[in-house]
């Protein structure tokens, strides 16, 4: 006889993650709006080193990805997992550790990033102590999730749970592999990888962070919440299986499309292109499965704001996943890469797919766990329209700006010279579009504030069902042999995780192992030498100030780039770059060949106030580099760390490194003095000038 068990769902943890989602969402969006305004009016950098675009932009990206979306994921997972498995979370204590641990990590990020503690890897900027904390809290989440799966009362795991398992295991792999760093102090480390290899690891991580943090958990939530909101089952369960396995298999291969036309081996670039194009099939399979779930329920879309948000979320997902493969075509990438197109592409996904689905779930789940109805559907509908307008005002000007700038970079006169040889001309041309983008951001943020008010009123209207009572039949031992292999797999979580792990490892291994093991993939160049101690210190200031957020360091093999910047970049030039600093966006010009292009005084003036050398520049000034003394107490440990990583500094060089540093610094200071600039040789600006003057000079072709 089957025994009915009574238990309760933990709604308090869902509520907590929900509040954190709203709070960090507003913080992240506000900082996003600030950085958007900084790109139009540099005065909004506020003249302090803690609020410049280079340091604040990672605060925005980390806040919206890991704080807003991250908490949104945990809210959705903790709500749906309990109900799909008919079990309370495995451990309330682990739930609390997970919640508070994650919030502390976010707080640590919000403090350390403006202070300049950054690894420079995009979306993985947090330094090694926080990386360790992330690993621990992620494991806590995993134990809690698998513990719940093990004590479940539902034999088979619904498709949403497969996506959660794939998310857990893949993010764990991505985070660990992309966090192999050698610490040199409490808040500074160097990546184990260098140059091309570091770039491949970073974009394998970066692309798949989008895949397995911004996509798969949201697909899992879509498969649970959309049927609940529409009150009808998912359109095709079989399609969801095909969607799941194809998506996790293909996604992991597509990372190299971020590195097209760089010095990454051609075969790896091509693999990225091919799998990116293939990716459209499972992505659209999921979108179609979601939209067709609404068949026969489209009348509800008119009246239910949650479904309105879901429809736009799915449409934005479809647009972004069409655009991704298109941007992976080399012909399109040649124009679009490094422009605002990428920013628009990312934000269609972030604002439309992640943002709108998060809003939909909040509007749906908060009234449920408070045992009431939404305070105002009308206000939610206004939020929907304001938010949609916000997305349009954001994306359309960015596409426009991208095409304008991409074409301006490439335009030649009939005489065969660049029509816009000054990079700044192309930046100033798109400022009106950037203003419109800020309007879009304001609209989107206004909508989020409306939602906050609406949900606060909803919470006040009801009362939290902290321990929602439920009952289900206890899981009985299985006595019938299940013939279908997949059906069997659906009730074996450990096996499921192992198979998902194998599937996601294949792509990464095929791309990474040859790039690391076969030396011909990264040909060395004998003239390329390690950085001098002063240049190394300057490089770390370049990293600290987040220069990589606006300046790339890789010249692509196009005439338009070699004429503008110089010889295209070679893999062998980056072998001592721990980490690589190729960047992903050119708000300012590429700097790989900037070495010796201008005199020291030009760089000094430019860093003191960019408008001295480039009138109208939107780059913030860096006067503190002149005031602050260079910290040379860590030079020796940096040299030792670099040697451990394979940089050929002679044994014992760390003992004389500071002497060499001082000598080179004095030489630059005396050159500046000869040009009417009086600055002490022990200031940070001397180091960064030394680094900039070194860039790309190892193989620089001498003119005349």
């Amino acid at each position, binding site marked *: 006889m089957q025994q009915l068990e009574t238990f309760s769902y933990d709604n308090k943890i869902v509520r907590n993650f929900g509040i954190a989602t709203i709070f960090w969402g507003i913080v992240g969006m506000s900082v996003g709006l600030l950085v958007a305004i900084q790109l139009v009016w540099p005065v909004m950098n506020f003249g302090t080193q803690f609020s410049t675009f280079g340091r604040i932009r990672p605060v925005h990206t980390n806040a919206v990805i890991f704080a807003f979306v991250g908490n949104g994921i945990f809210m959705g997972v903790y709500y*749906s997992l309990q*109900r*799909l498995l*008919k079990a309370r979370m495995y451990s309330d204590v682990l739930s609390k550790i997970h919640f508070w641990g994650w919030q502390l990590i976010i707080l640590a990020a919000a403090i350390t990033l403006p202070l300049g503690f950054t690894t420079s890897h995009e979306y993985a900027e947090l330094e090694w102590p926080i990386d360790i904390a992330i690993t621990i809290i992620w494991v806590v989440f995993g134990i809690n999730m698998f513990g719940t799966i093990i004590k479940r009362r*539902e034999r*088979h795991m*619904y*498709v*949403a749970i497969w996506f959660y398992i794939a998310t857990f295991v893949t993010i764990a792999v991505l985070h660990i592999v992309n966090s192999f760093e050698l610490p040199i102090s409490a808040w500074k480390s160097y990546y184990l990888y260098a140059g091309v290899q570091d770039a491949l690891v970073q974009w394998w991580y970066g692309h798949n962070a989008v895949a397995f943090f911004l996509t798969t958990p949201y697909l899992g939530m879509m*498969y*649970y919440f959309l*049927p*609940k909101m529409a*009150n*009808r*089952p*998912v359109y095709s*369960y*079989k399609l969801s*299986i*095909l969607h799941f*396995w*194809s998506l996790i*298999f*293909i996604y992991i*291969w597509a990372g190299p499309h971020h590195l097209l036309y760089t010095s990454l*081996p*051609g*075969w*790896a670039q*091509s*693999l990225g*292109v*091919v*799998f990116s194009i*293939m990716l459209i099939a499972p992505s659209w399979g999921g979108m179609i499965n979601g939209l067709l779930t609404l068949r026969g329920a489209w009348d509800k879309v008119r009246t239910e704001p949650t479904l309105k948000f879901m429809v736009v979320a799915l449409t934005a997902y479809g647009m972004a996943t069409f655009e991704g493969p298109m941007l992976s075509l*080399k012909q399109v990438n040649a124009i679009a890469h490094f422009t605002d197109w990428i920013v628009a592409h990312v934000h269609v996904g972030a604002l439309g797919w992640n943002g709108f689905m998060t809003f939909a779930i909040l509007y749906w789940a908060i*009234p*449920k766990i408070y*045992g*009431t*109805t*939404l*305070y*105002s*559907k*009308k*206000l939610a509908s206004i939020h929907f329209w304001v938010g949609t307008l916000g997305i349009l005002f954001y994306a359309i000007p960015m596409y426009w700006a991208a095409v304008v700038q991409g074409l301006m970079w490439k335009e030649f006169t009939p005489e065969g010279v660049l029509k816009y040889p000054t990079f700044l001309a192309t930046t100033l041309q798109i400022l009106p579009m950037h203003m419109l983008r800020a309007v879009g951001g304001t609209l989107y943020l206004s909508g989020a504030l409306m939602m906050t008010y609406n949900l606060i009123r909803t919470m006040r209207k009801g009362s939290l069902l902290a321990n929602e009572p*439920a009952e*289900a039949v206890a899981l009985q031992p299985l006595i019938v042999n299940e*013939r*279908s*292999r*997949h*059906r069997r797999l*659906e009730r074996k979580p450990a096996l499921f995780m192992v198979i998902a792990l194998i*599937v996601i490892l294949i*792509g990464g291994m*095929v791309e990474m192992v*040859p790039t690391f093991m076969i030396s011909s993939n990264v040909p060395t160049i004998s003239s390329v030498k390690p950085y001098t101690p002063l240049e190394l210190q300057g490089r770390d200031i370049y990293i600290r100030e987040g220069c990589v957020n606006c300046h790339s360091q890789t010249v692509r093999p196009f005439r338009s780039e070699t004429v503008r910047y110089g010889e295209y970049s070679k893999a062998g030039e980056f072998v001592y770059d721990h980490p690589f600093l190729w960047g992903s966006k050119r708000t300012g010009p590429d700097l790989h060949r900037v070495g010796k292009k201008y005199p020291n005084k030009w760089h000094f003036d430019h860093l003191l106030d960019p408008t001295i050398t480039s009138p109208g520049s939107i780059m913030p000034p860096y006067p503190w580099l002149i005031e602050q003394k260079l910290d040379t107490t860590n030079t020796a440990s940096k040299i030792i760390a670099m040697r451990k990583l394979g940089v050929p500094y002679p044994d014992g060089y760390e003992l004389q490194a500071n002497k060499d540093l001082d000598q080179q610094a004095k030489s630059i200071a005396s050159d500046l003095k000869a040009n009417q600039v009086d600055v002490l040789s022990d200031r940070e600006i001397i180091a960064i000038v030394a680094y900039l003057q070194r860039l790309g000079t190892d193989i620089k072709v001498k003119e005349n």
Partner: protein
Amino acid sequence: MFKQITDLQGNEWYLIISLWIFLAFFILVAILLFRMKKQHVNYMQQLPLNDGETEVLEEETN
């Protein structure tokens, strides 16, 4: 356009092997799908709707 994936100085086999791996995997998943029973598919489809929750009736607000 196809020069991008054919002109790889002898490294084309990386692509060819990768595509074969995917094809084999895709066929395997397709076989698993065809072997699934409709009864099980229907049961799984209904799981989110059968979680024992009582629907709170939406009352018209504002």
